[in-house]
């Protein structure tokens, strides 16, 4: 009896393990190890739920990089470029943008890429009835008519051969920058597939599930949202070189899985890693690629709350946080600190360096400012945070302690995104600060406008702190119209000075974008935007 039971237990526990282990090759699946040198296996974001660039949620589709070509995009230095456009010029009065498509480019099915493809793409993306991007690249003549049902196409677009002209409703020197900042979220669409269809039929068209026709270096063969994707080389790619990999596989993985699979060779590339993760990987021989981020991690302050209405209180909240220490210790120095508390990271010409307050850590000053503002420190400050990131948890703990050191009582509360948005929507005083991150503040200062205008206070826009200053609004309006670069620089510097003096948010640090890859993988250049990990995938290859 006893021996039989032992046998049963032993067999049940070990037979499969031993058998499976005996059959193991090396645990690897692709790239330089498993399936041969023609295959690359990397990671993709778990939040990617759709491959339809017109649909909500399209922002998270990092896999676009492989099979599509954006109309305009930015490189790792935040400079605008385009693979398919010969030129993009804004007229002197900033009311017209002329876009010229390159000659000789083809779709994967051999059809030539022309101005008509560009026209169809813009015509769809600018239609506010079907496109989630329409507002972000808005300001084009005819958008309102299409919303009102008075037109079927955007009247402000004209096409002549390979040239598309965009007429802007008002002068807008930043329209090109807005399109470029959307990057891979605005891929070129094939006119010969979608051009003849009514817009409402395009929105949920089967095309966007399978992408049978592509312009990128790889063709999509399968896509499981939030799970995996597979691509095959586009043998008809017009990019001037043959993509190296025959197959590219992407997996959506949690960070623990990323680390484990990088170590075992199951994947050869992982991105959006935490600072504590890359150090260990580096020691084990993985190559680490990093780049300065394009957006700070932010503590939004409740501009609507009378307790925070005195700017000195908000200034004190910044002075009280040792942001450099947080950057050095919690993020292992893989970050930068916007010491003047300006959210915009670049271009340099827009960032003021004079007549701005330096918010270096100064707890004594924080105490003085709170006292001068007669701030009631006995009332707690509600700090909303979110789970899911060990780094953010540590930062929030540090902030709580540092605010405590200047006499503030902090009540942290955890919310998921849905709960946070509902809380913000109420525009009440139930909270004083919340943690948030994201967006792109590297291409043009116009990006900041939506985050600090009276008209974009959430839920009407992305101004979640509810900052409102008519003077700043008029600067935003002037900045987007101003065609003289020097004047424009002055306008934006003045706007940022106002935000520096009357802060509505605390810009804690700008985390570096971190990736790790197999040592024999070459060509990896990290982009500051976490949805652009494969932006230069055509340049990737294997060493030797």
């Amino acid at each position, binding site marked *: *009896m006893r021996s039989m*039971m032992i046998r*049963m*237990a032993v067999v*049940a*526990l070990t037979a*499969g*393990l031993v058998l*499976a*282990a005996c*059959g*193991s090759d090396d*645990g690897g*699946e692709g790239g330089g190890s498993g*399936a041969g040198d023609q*295959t690359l*296996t990397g990671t993709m974001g*778990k939040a990617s*739920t*759709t491959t339809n660039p017109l649909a*909500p949620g399209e*922002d998270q589709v990092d896999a676009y990089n492989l099979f599509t070509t954006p109309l305009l995009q930015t490189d790792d230095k935040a400079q605008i470029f385009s693979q398919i456009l010969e030129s993009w010029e804004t007229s002197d009065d900033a009311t017209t943008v002329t876009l010229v498509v390159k000659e000789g480019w083809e779709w994967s099915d051999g059809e030539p890429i022309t101005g008509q493809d560009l026209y169809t793409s813009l015509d769809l993306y600018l239609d*506010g009835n*079907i*496109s*989630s*991007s*329409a*507002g*972000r690249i*808005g300001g084009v003549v005819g*958008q*309102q008519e299409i*919303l009102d049902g008075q037109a079927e196409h955007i009247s402000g677009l004209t096409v002549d051969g390979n040239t598309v002209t965009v007429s802007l409703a008002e002068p807008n020197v930043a329209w090109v920058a807005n399109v470029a900042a959307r990057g891979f979220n605005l891929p070129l669409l094939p006119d010969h597939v979608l051009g003849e269809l009514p817009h409402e039929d395009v929105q949920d068209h089967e095309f966007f599930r399978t992408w049978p026709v592509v312009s990128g270096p790889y063709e999509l063969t399968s896509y*499981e*949202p*939030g*799970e*995996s994707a*597979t691509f095959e080389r586009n043998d008809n790619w017009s990019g001037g070189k043959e993509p190296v990999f025959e197959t590219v*596989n992407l997996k959506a*993985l949690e960070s*623990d*899985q990323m680390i*484990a*699979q990088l170590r*075992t060779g*199951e994947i050869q590339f992982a991105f959006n890693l935490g600072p504590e993760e890359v150090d260990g990987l580096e020691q084990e021989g993985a190559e680490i690629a990093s780049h300065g981020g394009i957006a700070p991690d932010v503590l939004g302050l409740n501009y609507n709350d009378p307790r925070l209405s005195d700017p000195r209180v908000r200034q004190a909240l910044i002075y009280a946080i040792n942001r450099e220490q947080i950057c050095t210790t919690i993020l292992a120095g893989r970050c930068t600190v916007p010491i003047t508390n300006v959210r915009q990271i670049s271009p340099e010409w827009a960032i003021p360096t004079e007549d701005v307050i330096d918010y270096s850590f100064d707890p004594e000053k924080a105490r003085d400012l709170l006292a001068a503002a007669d701030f009631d420190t006995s009332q707690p400050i509600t700090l909303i945070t979110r789970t899911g990131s060990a780094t953010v948890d540590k930062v929030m703990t540090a902030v709580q302690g540092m605010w405590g050191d200047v006499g503030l009582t902090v009540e942290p509360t955890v919310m998921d*995104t*849905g*709960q*946070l*948005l*509902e809380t913000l*929507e109420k525009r009440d005083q139930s909270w004083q600060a919340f943690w948030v991150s*994201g*967006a792109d503040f590297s291409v043009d200062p116009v990006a900041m406008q939506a985050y600090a205008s009276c008209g974009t206070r959430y*839920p009407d*826009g*992305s101004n979640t702190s509810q900052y409102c200053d008519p003077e700043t609004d008029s600067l935003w309006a002037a900045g987007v119209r101003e065609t003289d670069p020097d004047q424009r620089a002055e306008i934006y510097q003045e706007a940022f000075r106002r935000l520096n003096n009357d802060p509505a948010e605390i810009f804690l640090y700008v985390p570096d974008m971190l990736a790790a890859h197999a040592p024999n993988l070459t060509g990896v250049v990290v982009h500051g935007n976490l949805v652009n990990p494969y932006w230069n995938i055509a340049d990737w290859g294997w060493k030797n």
Partner: protein
Amino acid sequence: MLSFVARRLLIATPVLFGILVIAFAMVRLLPGSPGDMMVPPDAKNGPHSETFIREAEQQLGLDKPVVVQFFLWLGKVLTGDLGYSYSRGDAVLSVMGERLPPTALLGATAIVVALLVAIPIGVWTALRRNTWIDYVGAAISMLAVSVPAFFLGLVAIFVFAVKLEWLPSGGMQSFGDAGSSWDLLRHLLLPALTLAAVMVGPYVRYARASMLDVMGQEYITTAVAKGAPWRRVVWRHGLRNSLLPLVAVLALQVPGLLAGAVIVESVFAWPGVGGLTLEAIAQRDYPVILGIVLLSALAVLLFSILADVVTAWLDPRIRL
């Protein structure tokens, strides 16, 4: 038997309806809305976003009163249509159809492994009550109950995937090797053993307690007194009767595995219902959440009926 099943199904119908009403209400009480989740703050800039959001909400039927939405949804459910995922745009049945088989495979394998381990240990420790074997068995079961699945999973990945490189660290199949049973087995082993390890503890305790109870019955004494071989007494009279309570426990646990394997699925990147549930809740994807609740409720009701039927089959004294 058939009339029993029919009667139970009839009773189950209002119960199921009640569950759906409560589930629908609970889902709607979740803070945040699908519209907010679909259209992030930075997509709301500009005059066009308002139209886009309005159009999207109309398409999803979110502009109607909640009661109307419930009955519209229920009407569709009765025709086998669970609606469309807000975030993916795919039919909920299709989304769940993709995720259910992996979860079922993982759960079934884990249960089989757990039973294969737990029943012998439970029986053995019962037969060796208050000996060192019993104490070791109790320690094993307590350890299994106490160690969290995520920790066990991470240790398993570190040892068997990272260090020994015997098994893949996660996922269900290798790229380019889809459909290979061998590949599937290799991927299944670590998550299934981890999940099984978590289940072993309670099963050992149930099996031991039940076996002790049965072995104290008079018919066991009679069988022994009649000179029946000990092996026959244990296996035929003891084990078979001691399985009855375990069947009931299993019947209740199987539906729970639909969502209960969420941690193991997450640790091993196993593409099952658990991950889908978390994703749907985070996205406020109401149709998917309700689809999973409906599936779980149906599973609980059907498995409890199944448990009664199996119990009656195992013990003819029980009349249905």
